[in-house]
């Protein structure tokens, strides 16, 4: 139904916007790597290199009022939903004015106003949570949908099964996106499931499933858009499988020793989502080289400015640790041996073996 040169009915502005979000994701992550090597990132660093299209394209199918729950490879989805580079940088650097005020790490944060709910580490947990979010949309008759991401690995959890099944039975307006990137940490998909494809699981839940090339940003957008439209129209839960590839290790410390020789290089050379989209923009969609370069320059400037801003922020005050566990009381009291103590240590040690650990070196 898309007019020639206008896939999916996206305007030319929106077509270029897709490129902007993917480039922003990659450039921001590259900046995080630099900060990580300078030991300014406190914990581990997680990349979505090679997965920018599935994250950006799928989130692009939502409206502002919709709610999305990202996972560790969904920096791009969060940016589309309104998370800012400076928030991401401050969060990784554990700054006082980071979105979680130093309480949580990496991209574990959310904002229901902008429409994203922060994940927790235990995999699969966000599926039932998003079942409840979208159940409330349905109960209140709101024209809103939800989208929840799970990795290929996370589909093996009990929480995934219970959450998707409950949402399906309740006909919640929920899209479950399985990002099949070939690995869960070191575990290949073949050890995760005997299903040939993840959409086969949809049959068991009695819901539609559709699979697409996750390294094609337009295809990722279109397949998710169909599921979002279905949910909005009262069609309940859909399972979308986006096939992609995790080109970096699970986190920066992981040397990917378990990956067959040449596999990463092959994906990088033949199937980089950003390179593919640039080719499409400059070919079929007839954008000029300068259009793309302008986006690159804008992204660089934005990431530079965000880095400067993030670096200017300080760490949280120790006593902030005791604030906000309950609505009432709003803060806990320090234990008696800390009554008049601002900090119980002279220096905040940054342990080896976490985040910075590199035994065996990088591949």
């Amino acid at each position: 139904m898309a007019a020639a040169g206008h896939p999916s009915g996206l305007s030319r502005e929106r077509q270029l916007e897709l490129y902007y979000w993917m480039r922003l994701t990659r450039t921001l992550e590259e900046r995080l790597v630099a900060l990580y090597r300078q030991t300014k990132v406190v914990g581990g660093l997680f990349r979505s290199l090679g997965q920018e299209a599935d994250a950006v394209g799928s989130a692009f199918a939502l409206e502002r009022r919709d709610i999305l729950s990202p996972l560790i490879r969904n920096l791009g989805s969060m940016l589309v939903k309104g998370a800012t580079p400076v928030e991401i940088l401050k969060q990784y650097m554990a700054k006082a004015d980071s979105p979680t005020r130093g309480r949580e790490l990496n991209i574990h944060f959310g904002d229901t106003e902008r429409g994203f709910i922060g994940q927790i580490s235990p995999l699969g947990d966000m599926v039932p949570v998003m079942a409840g979010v979208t159940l409330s949309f349905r109960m209140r008759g709101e024209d809103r949908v939800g989208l929840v991401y799970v990795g290929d690995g996370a589909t093996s959890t009990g929480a995934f099964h219970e959450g998707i099944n409950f949402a399906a039975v309740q006909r919640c307006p929920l899209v479950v996106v399985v990002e099949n990137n070939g690995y869960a940490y070191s575990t290949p998909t073949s050890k995760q499931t005997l299903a040939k494809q993840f959409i086969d699981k949809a049959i068991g839940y009695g819901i539609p499933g559709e699979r697409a090339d996750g390294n094609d940003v337009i295809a990722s957008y279109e397949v998710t858009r169909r599921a979002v439209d279905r949910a909005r129209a009262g069609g309940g839960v859909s399972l979308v499988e986006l096939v992609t590839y995790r080109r970096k290790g699970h986190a920066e410390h992981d040397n990917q020793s378990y990956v067959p020789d040449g596999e990463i290089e092959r994906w990088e050379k033949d199937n980089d989502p950003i390179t593919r989209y640039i080719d499409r923009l400059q070919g079929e969609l007839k954008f000029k080289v300068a259009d793309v370069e302008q986006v690159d320059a804008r992204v660089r400037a934005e990431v530079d400015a965000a880095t400067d801003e993030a670096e200017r922020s300080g760490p949280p005050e120790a006593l902030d640790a005791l604030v906000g566990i309950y609505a009432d009381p709003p803060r806990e009291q320090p234990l008696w041996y800390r009554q008049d103590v601002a900090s119980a240590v002279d220096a905040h040690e940054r342990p080896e073996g976490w985040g910075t650990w590199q035994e065996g070196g990088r591949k």
Partner: protein
Amino acid sequence: MTAEITYLEAIREALFEEMERDANVFMLGEDIGAYGGAFKVTDGLMAKFGEQRVIDSPISEIGIVGAAAGAAHMGMRPVVEMQFIDFIANAYDMLTNYVATARYRAFLPCPMVVRGPSGGYVRGGPFHSQNPEAGFIHTPGLKVVYPSTAEDAKGLMKSAIRDDDCVLFFEHKYLYRRIKGVMPEGDVTVPIGVARVAREGKDVSIITYAATVYKALEAAELLATEHGISVEVIDLRTLAPLDDEAIEKTVRKTNRVLVLHEDTRTGGIAGEITARINETCFEWLDAPVLRVTAHDVPLPYAPPLEDFVLPQVSDVVRAVRRLAAY
């Protein structure tokens, strides 16, 4: 022969030796085989013992803990890794409802071990730093072990694998590569349920375990040199069953007790230990039993926050001085 190895390597040695000794011992866990585990504890096991005995599992904590129980009923001796002990919460039902009650209600033995990296001081944030021992200590039918030295890590792992019941084996990730020890020659086990005197002293006792053993030892050194207070440090090593004899012995010796742990305060094991001391040794006490613990807060990520929430050496010094002044 006498080379030092790390706490982590000591655990790996125990796993190797037990797999060699008993063909029923096998490993289950996420990324433990080809990759050797998130912290490399099981590195080399798959190469040596093969995929049949070192199983890379899907991300299914309920599944692998439950499967371990079933295999254990049939005479196998499974050792299950939680990639981080925080995810043992997912298997809480299996462990507390199924495994813990199996012998009592159905005469079904569950000789299995669930092990994994635990604890904070590592900037791991709320889901990679937990000390969930209290919930399991509270459950009759489970044994809980939490060593602080490399020698104990090895010897207790051997005992845990040979035990006829389920043993939860907490490994402190802050200690993994920091703590080293020389292993005894031969097949040496450390008994479950027996505490250790980590430092002899006469004025005040600190009862603790895992990473805070080192906070206690550091404080003890400081208290001796700067304040002339002689501190005894008891390393519990096993949390269920508790070594009541060792606890009573040190109370009777020093008459002043501090219980120290990294876990949060409310419902932590320090409360249980304090209650036992009250019941059995009240007349031996010259001061109330005091606790130094984490604050009752989910463990935050930023270093100043984490360091504030967790117990530190200066807290121990302060608490011991208060006890000594009674």
